[in-house]
């Protein structure tokens, strides 16, 4: 667990600190989006039931709440994939290059 040379060089690299900051703010942004979608939906249920029960079109039976509810599920899944795609390509590439620099 003691810090070795590679770790010390990574820590000294300004790119590492910038990389961690960038990825963390992206994680937090995505977490906030996910939480907003969920709590927004729950607060709609708590405070504006009529809105969710309204019909999508005059004469239709499908209510506005159905596409919104299914939408929250689909949005949650999509958000996860958007994050994972970026983390697994762009972020991992940066990460690998920082480690390569430190191992030289």
């Amino acid at each position, binding site marked *: 667990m003691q810090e070795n040379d590679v*770790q010390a060089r990574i820590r000294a690299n300004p790119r590492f600190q910038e990389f961690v900051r960038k990825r963390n703010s992206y994680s937090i942004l995505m977490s906030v989006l996910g939480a907003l979608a969920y709590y927004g939906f729950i607060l709609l249920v708590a405070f504006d039931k009529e809105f969710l029960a309204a019909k999508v079109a005059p004469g239709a039976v*499908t209510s506005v709440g159905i596409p919104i*509810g299914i939408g929250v599920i*689909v949005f949650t899944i999509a958000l*996860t994939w958007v994050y994972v795609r970026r983390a697994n390509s762009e972020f991992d590439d940066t990460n690998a290059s920082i480690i390569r620099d430190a191992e030289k």
Partner: protein
Amino acid sequence: MTHLQRIVAAVSAVVIAGLACAAGPDLGQSTRQTTNVTAIVMFAVFVFGTLWITKWAASKTRTAADFYTAGGGISGFQNGLAIAGDYMSAASFLGISGLVFANGFDGLIFSIGWLVGWPVITFLMAERLRNLGKFTFADVASYRFSQTPLRTFAAVGTLVVVVFYMIAQMVGAGQLIKILFGLDYMVAEVLVGAIMMMYVLFGGMTATTWVQIIKAVMLLGGATFMALAVLFHVGFSPEALFVQATEVHAKKDAIMGPGALIKDPVSAISVGMALMFGTAGLPHILMRFFTVPNAKEARKSVAWATTWIGYFYILTFIIGFGAIVMLIQDPVTFYVDGDISKGLKGGGNMAAVHLANAVGGNLFLGFISAVAFATILAVVAGLTLSGASAVSHDLYASVWRKGNVDSVTELRWSKGATLALGFLAIALGIAFEKENVAYMVMLAFTIACSGNFPVLFMSVLWKDCTTKGAVAGGTVGLLLATILTIGSASVWESVLNNPAGSAWFPYNSAAIFSMTAAFLVIYIVSKLDNSAQAQKERALYPAQQIRSETGVGASTASAH
């Protein structure tokens, strides 16, 4: 059936005040149905198939590392399916489709709550867990801290969550077997206990993973078939499905909007927190991140898990509405005395099971019944493995032997702990047969989000966190979550039989208070801690951060 019904009814009552009464009358102790031979044969095929896999897995389970992590060679896609298999319980399949059947839209609100924890794990936890951990989440939480106090806390947090979660599963199994197979409660306890022990004891994580993958594929496949059959019935038009459902449902158009669901916003938000952050504190889920080779695969695992779980909830919604439309066409087969006003045979949670009969006949009914029961088996196996690891890896190898133990001895302890937990599961299942265990899954989530999650989160992400702060905060969160839950109506009145209205904790969920308290105590105690040990722990943060963010030095898959 009563218990499963109560589990679902009261978990929903937690999310939603008032829903419990709308969910249908409590039918009392469930009665044994006629023996369903097809279902028993299908289940037997599943058991023989999975035991055959266990035999193969046993040849690959030689070291403690194999037992805990399946050698670390599971792919992200496989692990995603296994996580989904760990998470999609019988209660969520039968319970949520039953809720949709009874209340329509409200069932959708309920299911969304169970999905929202996954993005949190993806964005904040998955790769850090993989980079810092080895076998258990305590490895991560105690990375730079004093081992004995932190691991002891983490092991207690693990075991408490595992036991509450397990009681709900074992009692659910007993009630379910009476209705699905027409067998006795006791048969379920012994069957689940014995088969699960064989998976974990001989096949460790490898067998448990494959049982969960197979179960997930069977459940997703069966549910997909049912949803497609429903959509086919209505000409693939959701509007037509809703038109027909509102025509025949007793609540008419009310099923298209929110019902009695959320009355009190504090409870709603508190339950939301328990589900959102509790998922990231469930030891049997966290443990699955150590079965993949690296952070990339860990992220893929959660993305796949989120996809399958979200897809599954959309299916249960279609299945619930399909049951409204299709079961009414044959009241004699599906309703008590053929009278729609008397409710479904076997209770409201049987909507999906009856629908299986309606769309696929007796053979498919047998298949779905077998899958519903196999689901419990897979969940209990995951829980037992996680509990056993806490005993052997955290308590025995790390706390007692201070890490000076060889792999063979540690593996022997894992197996001993598995046996002990297996017998405990059977004993608890029998002891709680007549008890109301509805609150237990929610209690497990509340403890996970108030004890395990804050400790894990702060130890990994806050540089000033210390051992004292983490242990103090985690303990406060765990105790407060338990005490406040006891004071809420779902335990104080429904379980302890105090008069209605006497519950001294006014909300349905403790999470908003207990989780906040845990974070506050961790912060304050850590800030006040200026001991030499605390200084040392803070000094170790940069090295921990580098490993957690880059994966440099992360433990790799064990080689054979």
